[in-house]
């Protein structure tokens, strides 16, 4: 199923929508459990390695994107709001290996809905500066 990808420069927002051929509870788990996230989050040939994750409001996922050469790019995603199986919001920022954030970051809003056994996920990413997108992974 095709992905919809829209950049609204004025609103400094990127919106990504995709439907998945699986029920909501499974897709929700895929986005919120580290053992699943590490299987799909990093675009090949990169791999994702979650060092710590606590999926609750105020908690965070601290993970690295790892290149085939073993170079690590650390990212922190702090969960700011969670409505189970419906929505969660996070603040995303690059970091060093000691979890010191590189600001500014971006605000993510993820919505989940199920229809006829398929699950639609809509992600909206707000950036203070769209130019930063070029560096984003």
């Amino acid at each position: 199923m095709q992905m919809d990808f829209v950049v609204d420069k004025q609103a400094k927002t990127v919106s990504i929508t995709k439907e998945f051929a699986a029920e909501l509870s499974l897709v929700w788990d895929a986005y919120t459990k580290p053992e699943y996230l590490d299987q799909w989050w990093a675009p090949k040939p990169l791999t994702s390695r979650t060092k710590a994750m606590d999926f609750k409001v105020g908690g965070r996922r601290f993970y690295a994107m790892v290149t085939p050469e073993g170079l690590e790019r650390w990212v922190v995603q702090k969960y700011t709001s969670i409505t189970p199986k419906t929505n969660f919001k996070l603040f995303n920022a690059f970091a060093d290996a000691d979890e010191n954030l590189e600001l500014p970051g971006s605000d993510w809003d993820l919505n989940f809905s199920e229809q006829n056994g398929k699950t639609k996920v809509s992600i909206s990413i707000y950036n203070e500066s769209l130019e930063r997108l070029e560096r984003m992974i």
Partner: protein
Amino acid sequence: MKRDVFQAIADPTRRAIIALIALQAMTPNAIAEHFDTTRQAVSKHLRVLAECDLVRQEQHGREIYYSLEVEKMKEIDKWLEQYRKIWESRFSQLDDMLVKIKKQKEKK
């Protein structure tokens, strides 16, 4: 650039117009036939696209034909492509993983 190019291509109707005229140069009337909208509305969209140099106009007799400025589109694409590609490969990996998990569940 008089107008924000990213704002111009964020509109779904304008993206559909771009897809149409990428295939061949068309008049506003011919474009309007493809949409549930008026010729005036199409002209307005074309004006927005022209203001950010995304379309080229050519006069043939009494008709004006619009075609896509392919190079301009490529510039934008290059910039967006990186980010779009990341999400595409991410999602295709997620598609694969979901299929795998569903199969495992069926076996049980």
